[in-house]
């Protein structure tokens, strides 16, 4: 079992896909000789050649659009948005085309594409290179949205996203790329059963914390703090944001009677507000012993200065304080 960073785990998954699926290819900006802005595609050009590792001009609309057309004609594209902020330039092919065609054409076509992108803040890259736009895509029927948090689920979720017959938005938080762990290099599955399934990171009875992407790691850091010793915390990593595994969340909340959601994205119309809305509308609502709480990023563009950036993004200390208040 090799020890891999998230970046290497994704690289392994891509390599495996390219090896086993001759109709697959990857396309994106600087993914060839440069190896990707975050090094994720390093070495793939050498192994698989220019025909299948397609370095593109800076043209996100075309990158996503060509993926749609290729997927409709028996190819299996995985395309990269160098920073997920740039996906804004590709909204038409993703939202109006990829997400709609299966439904709109009465089920006659599938659009199995994976659009990967580096998301999130913490690197001082400022407002146009730090966003967490995942909830935009959760709002669109026809898309699936996946957010890994560690090397193992990054590897597995990418393989499952690849075999899913639907368009998948795969958001890789920049701060997880360097996280290292042992990874079981599972085979490419025949179906995408992992999508739509949350992972219970740790079991507990006093409070349920729901999170996703890198914020799972911040929460893990918080709950290992001495200040919270004696509090039994159940931490759920959603992994897939659309479709969302509410069954796991509601089962947990029924047990702990308390719900805290932690996310880096701002709160308005967000993943966290959807989790809370679903819990409040469920029969579990009456068993809650206190109001559910959402810790989120501030409703502000991401500033570049470190002290301002950490003001916008929820920090370990913020999470510890809220948990102590709630329990």
């Amino acid at each position, binding site marked *: 079992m090799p020890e891999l960073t998230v970046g290497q785990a994704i690289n392994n998954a891509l390599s495996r896909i390219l090896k086993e699926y001759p*109709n697959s*290819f990857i396309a994106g900006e600087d993914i060839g000789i440069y190896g990707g802005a975050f090094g994720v595609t390093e070495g793939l050009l050498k192994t698989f050649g220019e*025909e*299948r590792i*397609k370095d*593109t*001009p800076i*043209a996100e*609309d*075309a990158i*996503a*659009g*060509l*993926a*749609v*057309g*290729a*997927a*409709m*004609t*028996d*190819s299996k*594209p995985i395309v990269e948005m160098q920073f997920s902020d740039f996906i804004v330039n590709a909204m*038409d*092919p993703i939202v*109006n*085309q990829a997400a709609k*065609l*299966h*439904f*709109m*054409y*009465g*089920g*006659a*076509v*599938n*659009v*199995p594409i994976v659009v990967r992108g580096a998301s999130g803040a913490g690197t001082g890259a400022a407002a146009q290179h730090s966003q967490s736009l995942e909830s935009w895509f959760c709002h669109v*029927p*026809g898309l*699936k949205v996946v957010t890994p948090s560690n090397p193992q689920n990054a590897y597995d979720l990418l393989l499952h996203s690849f075999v899913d*017959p*639907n368009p998948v938005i795969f958001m890789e938080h920049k701060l997880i790329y360097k996280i290292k762990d042992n990874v079981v290099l599972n085979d490419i599955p025949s179906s995408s059963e992992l999508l739509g399934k949350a992972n219970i990171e740790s079991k507990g009875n006093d409070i349920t914390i729901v999170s996703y992407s890198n914020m799972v790691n911040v929460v893990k850091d918080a709950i290992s703090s001495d200040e919270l010793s004696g509090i039994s915390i159940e931490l759920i990593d959603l992994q897939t944001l659309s479709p969302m595994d509410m069954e796991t969340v509601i089962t947990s909340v029924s047990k702990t009677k308390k719900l805290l959601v932690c996310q880096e994205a701002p709160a308005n119309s967000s993943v966290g507000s959807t989790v809370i809305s679903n819990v409040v509308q469920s029969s579990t609502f009456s068993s809650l012993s206190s109001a559910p709480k959402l810790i989120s990023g501030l409703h502000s563009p991401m500033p570049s200065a470190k002290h301002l950036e950490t003001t916008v993004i929820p920090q370990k200390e913020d999470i510890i304080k809220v948990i102590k208040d709630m329990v």
Partner: protein
Amino acid sequence: MALIKDTQLELHRMMMLIRLFEEALEEMFSRGLLHGTMHLSIGQEATAAGACLALDKKDLITSTHRGHGHCLGKGAEPYKMFAELLGREDGYCRGRGGSMHIADLSNGNLGANGIVAGSLTISVGAALSFQLQKKENIVLCFFGDGAVNEGSFHEALNLASLWNLPVLFLCENNQYGMSMASEKAVAGESIASRGKSYGIESIQIDGNDVEAVYESVSTCKDEILSNKRPKFIEAVTYRYRGHSKSDRNLYRTSEEINFWKDEKDPIKRYIGKLLEQGITEVDLKKIDEEVKQTIRTSVKKALDSPLSPITNLEEDSYA
């Protein structure tokens, strides 16, 4: 190059089918039978018929919001198209797409698209598949003059040229993007010159001359496959009807519309040419009667067919 008689009659038949199909839709619309709007290509039939009939079944097309002609040209069944517009289960998209979103993959139609320029990059992706799969076919991408000012038009042409993709960009320049005259909207020399600026060999043709369209597309297809380069055609044409059903034609004169109807109509012109070349009125009448009969029986069958059942539409959103 003189076309053989069968091809000529087939071109005439297809233009008649497209026109009568859309006239039947207009009639159904005025009777209140259709929900939603539609974009009619009456006056533009030569481009759709000429281009599609020059392709093989395995060549692909991507189409536009004004796509009934492309769809019929590529071999779609009028019955299933009427059924689609009427929200019937037998419709191409089971009532989920309607006028603007008919796809017919069995005949190589990747689908009509409601987003102007939305299919440009899709055609590039499909052409990339052909290249990777080493198939000897092309993708013909239909779009209108309105599309050439969208960013994705430029991204698509750039990539197709860079990667030597087997795609034929075919601009149906009907001279108006809704109300916006293309001469007020398109900077530079011409639409065709935009293809050239990406290193793509580009020509401008009379889009109301069905044989000119047929022959240009045939030649382009051969050259795309032998030279491994994309091509670009600007076909100049004209739509008689409004942009959609809400259009009051405030942006152009009735003289202008009548000029195109009287002097440039693609069907009228072609009938004149065929009669000059010795095809008889009897030959043409026989075709016209067959087309009328097809339309009549297709409309009736569609009206008699069951509505699309209300299924779990949330589940239908995913494959």
